[in-house]
């Protein structure tokens, strides 16, 4: 398979302390590869080493050890950077420029010709929904708008692979959904997306594969369901009101069952019993309103993960 990113044994030590500097390992022998055309989720707590990894890839910091290839080129290759995009964590740009000027500036640095550049800027601004405020100085942008202009500059050069560092952080629910849509549409265009997050649901919704980082070490890597051990976990079901006989019939399948004004709310013990339960609800005159997996928080995921490994 064609890998657009290959990381091998990447290690980073920071010297901390003012007087007698002690090396602290923030990234410990990370290896992974990202296939062309997939959305890759890079998951971990704050401080797990996600941003460090991306900064190494962008040559903002230099690794202590290890190497990485992007699009088959070593990361110090400057020409290769014309084919990638990068959104920094909580991005901030030259606030004296307008959105349009910023993209124009970066477009020039990417070496995009004038005519093409103009067109690209317009379509990109449209895509991120900033077409109206392109003539406004960035100092007047809200946090969400900055995030979007950040995405715009990351995809301005029509890159083959995009690195997004916490693209959803600091956004309201609508903003998050919009960013999700943008990421999904990038995949549809055949681009590879590598994004970091500390929110599991973002990964679940979008990602083909993930790597999970903890204290600078890779603790899980692969397809999300593989990583979670095919364990879909508990399901949550909401139904309309069922006949009185229905409740005792359903009780054995549920860990929790609550009667509400409009119906039933129950949590299933086993996802495999879903079909059976739906059958029972219907038999007792109820209708399914929704079935959702009970959200595993990242916290729980790591607890489980620890259990798996120890």
């Amino acid at each position, binding site marked *: 398979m064609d890998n657009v990113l290959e990381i091998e044994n990447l290690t980073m030590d920071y010297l901390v302390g003012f007087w007698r500097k002690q090396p602290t390992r923030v990234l410990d022998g990370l290896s992974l590869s990202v296939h062309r055309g997939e959305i890759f989720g890079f998951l971990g707590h704050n401080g797990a080493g996600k941003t460090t990894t991306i900064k190494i890839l962008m040559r903002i910091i230099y690794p202590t050890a290890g190497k990485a290839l992007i699009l088959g080129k070593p990361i110090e290759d400057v020409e290769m950077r014309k084919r990638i995009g990068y959104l920094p964590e909580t991005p901030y740009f030259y606030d*004296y420029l307008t959105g349009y000027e910023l993209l124009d500036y970066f477009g020039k*640095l990417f070496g995009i010709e004038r005519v093409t550049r103009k067109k690209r800027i317009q379509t990109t601004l449209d895509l991120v929904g900033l077409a109206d405020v392109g003539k406004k100085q960035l100092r007047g942008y809200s946090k969400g708008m900055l995030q979007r202009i950040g995405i715009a500059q990351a995809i301005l050069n029509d890159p083959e692979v995009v690195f997004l560092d916490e693209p959803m952080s600091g956004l309201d629910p609508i903003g998050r959904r919009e960013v999700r849509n943008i990421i999904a549409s990038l995949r549809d265009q055949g681009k590879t997306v590598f994004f970091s997050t500390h929110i599991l649901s973002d990964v679940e919704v979008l990602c083909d594969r993930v790597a999970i980082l903890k204290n600078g070490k890779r603790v899980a890597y692969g397809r999300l369901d593989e990583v979670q051990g095919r364990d879909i976990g508990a399901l949550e079901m909401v139904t309309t009101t069922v006949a009185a006989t229905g409740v005792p019939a359903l009780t054995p399948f549920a860990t929790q069952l609550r009667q509400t004004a409009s119906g039933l709310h129950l949590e299933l013990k086993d996802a495999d019993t879903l079909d059976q339960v739906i059958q029972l609800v219907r038999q007792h005159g109820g209708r399914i309103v929704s079935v959702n997996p009970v959200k595993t928080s990242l916290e729980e995921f790591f607890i489980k993960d620890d259990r798996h490994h120890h």
Partner: protein
Amino acid sequence: MRQIVIIAHNTFRESVRDKVLLNLIIFVLLLIGGSLYFGELTIHNEQKAMINLGLSVMLMFGFMIAVFIGTGLVYKEIDKRTIYSMLAKPIYRYEFIIGKFLGLSATLFVNCVVMFVGILIALFYLTRQLDATAFVLLQAAFLIYLELLLTTAFALLFSSFSTPALSVFFSVLMYIIGNFTPDLKLFADLLQVNLYPNLRVAQIVLYGLYYTLPNLSNFNFISRTAHGEPIPGAAFGLGIVYFVIYVGLLLSLTVMIFERRNFK
């Protein structure tokens, strides 16, 4: 080269938008006010006083721009993390540094040109004539511009490894020291080494400092110009060579530091 020009252009735009050039208005007002004042005050010396005032203020304003913008140039990018998205672009770090330097050089250039024209106008207002002094004035102003660029290079160097406050402090210190180097030499020359052999070490140290520290007085012909003396051709030429070498030295040091630096 292309990338350097693009970065320089943006740096220039930044200083323009930061209303740096507003100080020009203050300068011109000061100059005109000053020329009126001097016209009242002095009988024979208006021209001399005018040139002294004009060139000195040009140096002073330029110095403030060079130091305050020069020290913030790189630090601000690191502090606000705008440098992250910059470094991910297809540019080399040295292109970034050189571009920043050239951008501020352009700002200073515009400043100096406007100020120079201001001096000429004020001079014309005073003396009602323009003679050969204008050319010497141009030379002197050009050397001041070079001095400002040297200061900028220093500011850039300091800001590549320290905070703006410290960088400003270092830059001002450098400027003061740079203007006192002739005294170092004078002092070293005066040491009676033959009489007191143990002063030899002190003399060598002083000479060492004199030849390695920036000799900003190499660029200062303000008073001579005010006296209508021409700038010696050889000194003018060597001053330019000195500038080129010293700036090259400072920029390569800055690039060396910057290339290895991790941005947290």
